[in-house]
């Protein structure tokens, strides 16, 4: 599709126009932290190379989502989803949303809640110019400067953004704005990746049994922060509760790093210690999702590395696993 030029001095005008019809979610500063939140003022939006501490996945897969009310004579609640623009999503997060979309919609069943959110969301990507400490998207084979897994992709080129329109949803946003077409689409900047793509490649059984998970996970505190801020973690649980006499069902994020995640009604817990739980996190990200959907569910955003209170580093862990595999 087309490439157009969005001068930076017209960005605020664009945003204010969008805010009339959409909820606009973009990185903005909340205290010290940079977070994806609904913005009401165009000037609050921060589009730069910084990375938000949480991923924007919560706008497609909310941390707590009321999914139904039930009971005799209870009117089903309207399930209208607000049309949302998520602006300034980096390549790593776009790639992650590809994984999420596959998990929720490309399997045997379609998750209608996720799908509805997805259909009502316009994703606007933003190219990254430099890797931040902890980032390793390059090692995961991503091009930080470009992705097509969105509706519109912005590339910063000084005084203007080069906008690549990728879908009708993206096109709709720029309708009637009379933006100049880019003379010739700039060449896509390429990232060199000499080291080869970091992934786990091998027999599931061998990796499961031959890796020293106890020593790998020794430092882990089991806090689960990594799963909350991870752009691809998607495990959830259901909670039923009664609100003012009406039974309600919620879907909430859950975390494989918590002991309660796998506890059975009998009291038996198949993943009783952090060794098993950490193994699950790595195996799920690097193996199980790949087996089921064809993607490795780690995009190298580096959030878990930056936020881990114990200094766990998923990149080194995966490297170590692969080295052990080669040597054994």
């Amino acid at each position, binding site marked *: 599709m087309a490439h157009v030029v969005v001068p930076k001095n017209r960005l605020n005008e664009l945003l204010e126009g969008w805010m009339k019809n959409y909820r606009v979610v973009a990185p903005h500063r909340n205290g010290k932290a940079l977070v994806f939140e609904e913005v009401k003022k165009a000037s609050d939006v921060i589009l730069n190379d910084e990375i938000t501490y949480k991923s924007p996945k919560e706008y497609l897969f909310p941390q707590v989502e009321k999914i139904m009310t039930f009971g005799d004579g209870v009117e089903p609640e309207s399930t209208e989803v607000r049309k949302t623009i998520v602006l300034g999503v980096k390549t790593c997060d776009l790639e992650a949303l590809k994984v999420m979309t596959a998990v929720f919609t490309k399997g045997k069943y379609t998750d209608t809640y996720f799908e509805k959110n997805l259909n009502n969301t316009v994703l606007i990507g933003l190219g990254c110019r430099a890797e931040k400490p902890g980032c390793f998207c390059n090692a995961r084979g991503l091009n930080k400067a470009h992705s097509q897994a969105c509706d519109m992709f912005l590339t910063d080129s000084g005084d203007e953004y080069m906008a690549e329109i990728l879908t009708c949803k993206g096109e709709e946003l720029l309708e009637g704005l009379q933006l100049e077409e880019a003379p010739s689409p700039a060449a896509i900047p390429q990232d060199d990746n000499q080291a080869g793509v970091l992934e786990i490649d091998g027999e599931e059984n061998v990796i499961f049994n031959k890796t020293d998970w106890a020593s790998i996970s020794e430092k882990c505190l089991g806090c689960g922060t990594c799963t909350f801020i991870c752009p691809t973690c998607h495990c959830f649980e259901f909670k039923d509760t009664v609100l003012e006499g009406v039974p309600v069902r919620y879907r909430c994020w859950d*975390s494989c790093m918590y002991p309660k995640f796998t506890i059975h009604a009998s009291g038996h817990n198949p993943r009783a210690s952090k060794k098993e739980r950490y193994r699950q996190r790595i195996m799920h990200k690097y193996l199980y999702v790949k087996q089921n959907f064809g993607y490795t569910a780690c995009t190298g955003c580096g959030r878990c590395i930056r936020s881990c209170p114990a200094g766990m580093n998923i990149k080194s862990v995966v490297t170590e696993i692969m080295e052990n595999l080669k040597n054994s």
Partner: protein
Amino acid sequence: MNFEKQRNEIAAICNTLLGEGRVKVILGFTCGEYEGNAIPFFLRKREDVDKLKWDDTCTPNLARYLMEKKEGAAVIAKACDARAIVMYMAENQINRDNVYIIGVECEGMKDKDGMPAPGCRECRVKIPPVFDILVKNEETGKQNNIATDTSQNGEADLSEKLKRFQNEIKKCILCYSCRQACYGCYCESCFMDRNIPNWLSSELDTGSKMMFHLGRAMHLAGRCVECGACERVCPSGVDIRYLIKEITGFCEELYGYQAGVNANDIPALLSFKQNDREVGFVGGEEDGSCCGT
């Protein structure tokens, strides 16, 4: 450089301990791969001593790991780590004879921005209250200043306090990192994880967040060793400790107990005296000076 000197001393102690086979593992620090900050490190061989790090980024509280390594472990303990160990002893969680404590006098650590780390900012105890061997620091004040921190949070008005609290915890995402990093949160089953009864509503609302933070603060009454781990690990940057600090102040004022400073003291939550003051209790004495009541 003081850190350099201390590091060498610690390294020599580790070498001896591991060389003589007196301990199986030493809990220490090494250089993290990300931004060079210190991360927890388990020394098992003499070669590991080369990787030992001791500088002003050694913030993690290592006492937490003792709960998994109750025997044959040595730990490099700053004053706050040692205070946590004192609490573990007082609460019958570890046996003093089974842990070797390399106490290190500490000048305070720095956070990622080079500012004094949470906990270190208002640190009152710089000399470990318990140790088997002490690594001194010439620059540390000669004595611990264990005077009660009476710098209350300013707001005397309860509704002001509530407003500040609610405003602060808005940022919380209920990931419970603070609980996991805290030395004192070692319950096998946390009240937050219970579903019979369910203490939290399912919504990620202020009520749930208040329930968690107030519940945790109450459980830490007179137990917080002011290491700042909860605040350092919070991914959302919530100022979690100010509430617990206030409770710590009440506890010192009312019951004269300071957590983890003296191994022979009985923790306030574990003792009862007939003349204990009961400010804030239902039917207890009414006293405007404490607890903002």
